[in-house]
């Protein structure tokens, strides 16, 4: 059916991508609605993870399978780590200043 010899990879690509998509949407919904800054950050991590799943999936199941996808997911993880570190540091600084870690209190841009 595909011209490839032997059995096919057992997990369908669509299912993996669907998992990534749903995870992304959950993360997005969380980032848009949660009040606590930490949870917003967490939700963003969720979205990054969704992206990672896709990267790894395509690394194995893409048109041209290669390790680049995995390497990229590693980079993403690294950047996510840096991001969460800076993000949490900011959070602490803000909390010290405002005694709150709620998003709606960060409204210095309000008119």
């Amino acid at each position, binding site marked *: 059916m595909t011209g490839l010899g032997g059995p096919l990879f057992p997990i369908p690509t669509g299912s993996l991508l669907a998992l990534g998509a749903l995870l992304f949407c959950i993360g997005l919904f969380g980032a*848009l*609605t949660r009040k606590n800054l930490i949870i917003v950050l967490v939700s963003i991590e969720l979205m990054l993870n969704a992206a990672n799943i896709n990267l790894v999936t395509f690394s194995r199941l893409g048109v041209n399978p290669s390790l680049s996808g995995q390497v990229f997911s590693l980079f993403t993880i690294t950047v996510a780590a840096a991001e969460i570190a800076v993000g949490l540091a900011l959070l602490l600084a803000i909390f010290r200043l405002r005694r709150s870690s709620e*998003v709606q209190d*960060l*409204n*210095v841009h*309000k*008119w």
Partner: protein
Amino acid sequence: MVEYAWLAPVLPLVGYVFLLALGRRAAEGLVAGVSVILTFLSFLVSLAVFTALGAHPDVTGTYTMRWLTLGAHSIDVGFQVTHLNALMLVVVSAVSTLVFLFSKGYMHKDERFPVFYQYLNLFVFSMMALVVSPNLLQLYIFWEMVGLCSYLLIGFWYFKPEAALAAKKSFIVTRLGDVGLFIGIILLFLSSGSFDYSTVFQAATTGHLGLSWITPADLTTLTGILVFVGAAGKSAQFPLHVWLPDAMEGPTPVSALIHAATMVAAGVYLVARMYPLFVASGTALTVVAWVGGITALLGALIALTQRDIKRVIAYSTISQLGYMMMGLGVGAYAYGMFHLFTHAFFKALLFLAAGSVIHAVDTQDLFEMGGLGKKMRITQWTFLFGALSLSGVFPWAGFWSKDSIINATLQSGHMTLFWIAEIAAFCTAFYIFRVYFLTFHGKPRDESKMAHAHEGSWVMTVPLIILAVMAFIAGLFNTGLNNFGLQRYLMADSPTGLIGKVYPDNVPLMIISVTVALVGIGLAALMYWKPVISAEKLARNLSGLYRLSFNKFYLDEIYYGVVVWTGKLIAGIVDFFDRYILDLIVRMLGRLGYMGGVGLKYTQTGQVQTYSVIAFFGIMILLAIAMFHVGGVF
């Protein structure tokens, strides 16, 4: 000699530049001396040109250089000498020389004596340049320049509010007329393709003045009337005469030179210069005649009751200019100019004599004067000569010229105008002798002012005497004695007889005219010399007429009420519109932008998540559009 005619205007210009270089602190003697000498030289040049033309009538010529290129047309400046121009040159330079001399005494110790002479020199230059202009544009240029000089000289005593107002009024009213002239010469240029007199006349007389929107005949009439509007402004013809009496706020020599002898005569000169155009359109000529006649009568009527010595003479000037216009209007080209010629002398004389009086007594109110004859013998006699000339008593100059005009009016069949002229002549004799008797005879009505009155120095009396002589003999230049030399001289400009008619002397009419004048003089004598008739009682009995005359027929008030008030009203409306409507709209637009900003600022909640939701939803919408528009997904 004719090719040197440019010297006549240039000499005063040299004087002007020289005085300008000398500055405001120059010595009076130097300033006046240079001015008088240069003007006198100018007079000699003018006289030489005049006689040269008389000897060889065919040497008239035009000398020009290019001034401006306008499309295919070249506009020139230069000078042109015709018989008419030569006569004007002589009149202007002669009167100027005498007035310059007189001013030395009159303006003595004035703070701005050199400035006065600067302006006068500039005026004489402009006036002469106007006279010798070879084309309408140059005429207009100097037409405005003499207006400017008039403005400057009326406002010479700028610290007097009345002088400032009078100067402004004179400029604006004459400018009103100038707009007519301005449009007139533009239309003439457009229809004939040139500003040159000869080209314009050629086109006008052959019916070739062509513009697409008007017939040649109508255009000739229209331009004629427009040019006459300009002339009426300058020559103080009804209804644009209102500036001239106010112009008497200027120093008296200015009144004599500019507002009696020369500049105000420029309007008459203009009509004479443009005579072929007027002749080509009978309507325009009729308008000239009627406006002249009405002005002659109106001026004379107002002059009857004025209290200010200079204003009486000013209204007299208006009236006499009306005579000239009427003369031109009825076709008597030569007589109109003849009257201009004689009038220049006797009116300058009257003004200078009045100036001599004012200089001596420091008032202009007739009813403060009286009995000055004993103290100012020369002034009295010269004034009398002027008055007799003005009244038209045989054989003074005014008699010959005025009678020629009245004769021409009668013989050309303008009966109404003839009667107007006779009534005006009667009034003329009355009002000028009213002035004479009130000033020089009887008892002083204000002793304090009359006590120190004395004759001026020779610089003031010599011009008076010369002018008095001229006022006596000037009329003889156009009598049977020299075979009507002046009119033959003037008519030589147009050998074809295109420019008007001449009429033989009419002895019965002369007798009537002199009688009318003498009756007027007699009435004045009865009222003001040997008071047999009470002037006050007469004024009370005719109080309506008296007030009408005394208040100048309320023309100033009408002007103020109609023209000025309308203008101010429009200006006020424009100002209001500008400030409160247009600017309001502009500000409302600005406010609208501001309000928009204020309204939209509430979307800046500072809630990052809200922004994100909006951005996200926007992306979704774009995605939806992409999907449904481009398709291929479902």
